[in-house]
């Protein structure tokens, strides 16, 4: 019997674990190690953050789902990996520390034949002073990165609405809280959902909304922007984004590295090197991401963390990490199999794999401060990668060690994305987009880097319907209900 251990139970880890359990059957073991007791459909957190959904609408208990799937679920956080075993055994293992109520702090070693690192990110609030504490519930700003954060964000948001109803003008500042953030899309959704809710509450005229982000142009979204076919033109996402911001009367600051947050004020540096301040009454700033801080040890106990992980804490995979300057970047730099180059039985998927470089062109201020989005590895790509990695491992377990690995390069993969701009069955809107491929391939698609036959976007009520349907569809799939394998990632 082989044992697959999956670290992390988010979109990517959950996909990998559930498909592996289905394909391997009861003759092999799948273990999931995740510190959370609940699964969270993160894309809907923005609706929790404006009071349109509750925490219970976007989360469910993992234990019964894993029991049904025959997965050995351990509510714990991974601490370290010993890919060569230790002085007593050659068998590789991971060390975990329980977070389960009643077993908190208890440490256990779990041996594995194959390991998938799908831990997702550490929300690195500490990178910007004042952005937030270890729990992400900042003293001065809010977040929608987890369901609990979103509940807290809504509580603060409702207070602002009450103040506006009493005649007190409020300023909302939404965006990214550091020069190297990703997930601009979540902040984009949040600011327009706030705008939509303010309109519904009849207080829009009492609010000033401002966007602040590390993108060098509006509509970059961490993927270097995209060109979409519209009215016979290939139109940049910059035009569409600026149009929407103007239509909704939202001002913007771009190319900004937020370097300090105080009560009611952020300090930021722009790409031109200038230092500035912006005041706010309510602010939701996405933190930068980092690896979760897993350590790795060799058989003799020496620290080999730098062998297994990149400096940012994400797991090294089959990417070209020596691409160098932007001019040298190629689509082929991006990983295909997500296998660790040193230890062939370790894989990564979702945010946990170390990308070779950003997708957006790297930029820095004259002071040397890097200010550019880091690459997104969330949503549809993370699910597809998780499934491909599970497929590779299952093949090797069931068909032999020489089975070819499955590939899922982000440079050869598209993504469908629906960004909510307000919730409502008949007055909601969302930007529905597809992008192909996620990582631009300028050799294959000269100019825009993407196939404009498969890259499009439009905003409207239809997009909202799709987003709402996807909410229910993916929770259905994650709960492994009837037909779950038929729903694509």
């Amino acid at each position, binding site marked *: 019997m082989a044992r697959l251990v999956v670290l992390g139970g988010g979109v990517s880890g959950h996909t990998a674990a559930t498909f592996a359990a289905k394909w391997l059957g009861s003759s092999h073991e799948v273990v999931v190690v995740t510190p959370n007791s609940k699964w969270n459909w993160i894309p809907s957190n923005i609706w929790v953050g404006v009071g349109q959904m509750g925490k219970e609408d976007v989360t469910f208990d993992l234990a019964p789902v894993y029991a049904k799937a025959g997965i050995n679920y351990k509510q714990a956080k991974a601490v370290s990996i010993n890919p060569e075993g230790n002085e007593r055994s050659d068998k590789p293992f991971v060390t975990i520390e329980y977070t389960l109520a009643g077993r908190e702090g208890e440490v256990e070693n779990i041996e594995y034949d194959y390991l998938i690192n799908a831990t997702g990110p550490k929300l690195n609030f500490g990178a910007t002073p004042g952005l937030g504490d270890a729990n992400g519930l900042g003293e001065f700003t809010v977040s929608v990165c987890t369901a609990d954060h979103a509940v807290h964000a809504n509580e603060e948001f409702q207070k602002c609405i009450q103040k506006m109803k009493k005649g007190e003008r409020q300023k909302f500042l939404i965006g990214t809280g550091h020069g190297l953030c990703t997930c601009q899309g979540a902040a984009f959704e949040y600011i327009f959902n706030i705008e939509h809710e303010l309109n519904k509450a009849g207080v829009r005229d009492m609010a000033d909304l401002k966007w602040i982000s590390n993108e060098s142009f509006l509509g970059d979204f961490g993927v270097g922007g995209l060109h979409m076919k519209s009215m016979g033109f290939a139109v940049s996402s910059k035009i569409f984004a600026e*149009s929407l911001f*103007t239509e909704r009367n939202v001002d913007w600051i771009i190319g900004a590295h937020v370097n300090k947050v105080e009560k009611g004020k952020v300090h930021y540096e722009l790409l031109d090197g200038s230092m500035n301040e912006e005041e706010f009454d309510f602010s939701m700033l996405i933190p930068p991401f980092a690896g979760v801080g897993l350590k790795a040890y060799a058989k003799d106990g020496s620290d080999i963390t730098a062998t297994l992980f990149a400096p940012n804490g994400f797991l090294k995979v089959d990417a070209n990490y020596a691409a160098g300057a932007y001019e040298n970047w190629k689509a082929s730099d991006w990983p295909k199999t997500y296998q660790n180059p040193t230890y062939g039985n370790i894989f990564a998927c979702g945010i946990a794999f170390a990308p070779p470089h950003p997708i957006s062109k790297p930029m820095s201020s004259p002071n040397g401060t890097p200010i550019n989005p880091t690459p997104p590895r969330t949503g549809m790509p993370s699910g597809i990668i998780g499934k491909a990695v599970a497929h590779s491992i299952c093949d090797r377990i069931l068909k032999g060690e020489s089975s070819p690995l499955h590939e899922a390069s982000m440079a050869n993969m598209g993504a*469908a994305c629906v960004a909510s701009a307000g919730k409502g069955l008949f007055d909601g809107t969302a930007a529905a987009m597809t992008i192909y491929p996620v990582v631009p391939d300028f050799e294959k698609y000269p100019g825009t880097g993407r196939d404009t036959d*498969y890259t499009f976007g439009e905003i*409207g*009520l*239809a997009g909202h319907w799709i987003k709402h349907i996807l909410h229910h569809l993916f929770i259905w799939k994650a709960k492994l209900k009837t037909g779950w394998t038929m729903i694509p990632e």
Partner: protein
Amino acid sequence: MEKKAEHNIKAYGNNFTTMTPGPLAIKLRTCKIWQFIRFIIINIKMLIVVRKSH
């Protein structure tokens, strides 16, 4: 129909060079019949991209 979006443009400000939707474009965004048609078209387009990506 009111040309409200145009009024948000600030001369030589951040948004001076962008395009803004006219009243008809904004109306169509929440027109149920038109959006039902778009719903079908967008779904087909997305399914094609999803199929190409797996």
